[in-house]
């Protein structure tokens, strides 16, 4: 038989907690646990998502570099094109060119990268126009353009970022050089210039490239790189091929296929230092697990203590006519409110710090493609650990409430609470 009402349990549980210092300290500890747990989970998941995004979105992780097959007529180009899952093959001579642009000013050093743009390598969501292999001297640049070699570093100066929309349709000029060999080293010989029109914009965060990378047609890169090489442009050696695969998962298949066809040691263009990634992930997981078990052990102690400390009150409740079920309900709600409060307080602290960090320290990271967010699953998991698990623990301890506490009530023993 349960008579006591939930609303009464809540109101008295809150009333008693308001003046209880010990309660407040414990609440603080549990809130801190919530905060740390949430923080650890969010850090880990953002890290994992950053790594995954980098791998899935940056084309370098599904591009293979192979040496040319010198025995074949076309160095093996046509053979490679026929391999399943290969979407594009091009000479590494026109993979990209780093050039000085007329964006150079007090703010920027003006160095930008021109990347090989083709139907396979161009970003998917282009604002404005795209181009095909017949076009020349057109460029697709980042919406948040940062024409400087600094663009590769994390944490860009937000105020220096150029708005791509202001640049759409405008021209920029690049300077590149031919070289001669003076007997000791290559020295700049003649300067050449070339103008590109910005016809389209792309979001470099989506494809994980730096903010100073523009896509231009292959022939333009070829022209720039041919001038820059010491060899005779007509007989330029093919140093290798870049083989673009349709997805990261097929990269190893294509690599095997290439080896079968006699291409030596195909290598993935961008590789992640997996040992570092794994170390970071392992550390995160260990910390999260420690915090989780910490919380569970703390809950066990706290709830047990809460019941034991209240033996006198439980005895009084029994004497007053509360049934055992009433008392169990009361203490279940009491513990539930405690863990809910701990969760809410901890979460608010987390949210505040998260928002502050995002607005200050981490703000510049956003322009480097580092998307920071809170994962709903992390909130749910934290809620599960803080509220649900402790409720289960409280049910266990509450189930042990017996008639014994009532007997301890009388007899004249002096009791200090």
């Amino acid at each position, binding site marked *: 038989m349960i008579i006591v009402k939930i609303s009464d349990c809540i109101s008295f549980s809150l*009333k008693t907690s308001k*003046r209880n210092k010990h309660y407040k300290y414990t609440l603080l500890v549990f809130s801190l646990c919530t905060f740390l747990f949430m923080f650890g989970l969010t850090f880990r998941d953002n890290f994992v998502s950053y790594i995954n995004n980098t791998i899935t979105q940056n084309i370098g992780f599904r591009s293979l570099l192979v040496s040319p097959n010198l025995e074949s007529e076309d160095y093996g180009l046509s053979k490679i094109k026929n391999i399943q899952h290969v979407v594009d093959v091009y000479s590494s001579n026109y993979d990209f060119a780093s050039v000085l642009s007329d964006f150079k000013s007090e703010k920027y050093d003006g160095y930008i990268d021109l990347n090989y743009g083709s139907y396979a390598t161009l970003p998917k969501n282009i604002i404005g126009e795209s181009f095909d292999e017949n076009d020349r001297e057109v460029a697709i640049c980042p919406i948040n353009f940062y024409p400087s070699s600094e663009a590769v570093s994390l944490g860009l100066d937000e105020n220096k970022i150029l708005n791509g929309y202001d640049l759409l349709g405008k021209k920029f000029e690049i300077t590149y050089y031919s070289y001669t060999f003076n007997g000791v080293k290559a020295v700049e010989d003649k300067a050449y210039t070339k103008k590109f029109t910005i016809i389209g914009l792309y979001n470099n965060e989506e494809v994980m490239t730096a903010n100073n990378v523009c896509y231009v047609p292959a022939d333009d890169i070829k022209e720039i790189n041919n001038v820059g090489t010491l060899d005779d442009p007509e007989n330029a050696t093919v140093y290798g091929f870049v083989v673009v695969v349709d997805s990261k998962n097929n990269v190893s298949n294509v690599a095997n296929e290439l080896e079968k066809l006699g291409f030596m040691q195909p290598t993935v263009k961008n590789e992640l230092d997996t040992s570092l990634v794994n170390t970071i992930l392992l550390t995160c997981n260990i910390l999260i697990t420690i915090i989780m078990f910490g919380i569970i052990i703390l809950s066990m102690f706290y709830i047990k203590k809460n019941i034991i400390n209240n033996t006198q009150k439980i005895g009084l409740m029994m*004497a*007053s006519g509360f049934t055992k079920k009433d008392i169990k309900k009361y203490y279940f709600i009491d513990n539930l409110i405690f863990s809910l409060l701990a969760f809410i307080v901890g979460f608010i602290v987390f949210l505040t710090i998260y928002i502050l960090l995002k607005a200050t320290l981490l703000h510049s990271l956003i322009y480097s493609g580092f998307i920071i967010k809170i994962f709903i699953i992390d909130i749910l998991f934290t809620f599960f650990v803080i509220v649900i698990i402790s409720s289960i623990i409280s049910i266990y301890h509450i189930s042990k409430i017996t008639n014994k506490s009532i007997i301890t009530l009388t007899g004249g023993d002096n009791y200090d609470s």
Partner: protein
Amino acid sequence: MKKMQHNPKNKIVISAKNIYKSYKTKNKKIEILNDASIEFETGKLYAIMGHSGSGKSTFINTIGLIDTFDNGSLELCRKKIAHYDDDKLSKIRMENIGFVFQDFKLDNNLNARDNVIFPMLINKQIPKKERKNIANELLEKMDLSNRADHYINELSGGEQQRVAIARALANNPQIILADEPTGNLDKKMEESIFKFLKQLTKGEDGKCIIVVSHSGEIKKYADVVYTIEDGKIIGDNCED
């Protein structure tokens, strides 16, 4: 033994017959109550005396249904207590009995009024809105109107015990069981507590008050004094 006058307005609320109660420890059995028979009625203040370890607390816990007995029969407010389950015993306690303890057993984190309201949470007869009024009335009865919002540690020992008495009255029981209610108080406070308890036996709704006490002072206020000796309950002559 002095003959007790029976006032027709008074009802017998506790009737214990041939109660046996013993505690079993590892190697022996301690007999506490041995064929104890006694009746209590409303409108009277009873004192239970006896030397330490004589079984006063055991007796009061037994008739208050917070401890069991081995043999005998017990009637509370005309209900025979036998093989009742916990829920039923709880209900009887809620409706009929209020406890007062030596160390008050108040919740330090609640104010005086909320301490009094707390037992009302399980009384369906009292609407939520009424609780505060009832608590205020009871505190007024205990001369604590101006202390209702005070927290327990802001009250003197005597005041705390009066809050505890108000709490015992929360669900308007007919029986108040007080085990050494003045054990932690000085003589002046003791007198005032006894006066307040005595006051509760007066009037239309006079309660049955049973007080366990070591203090001879209680004899001044008690209508009847019993002594527990060798497991028996013996009626004393009571000179007012």
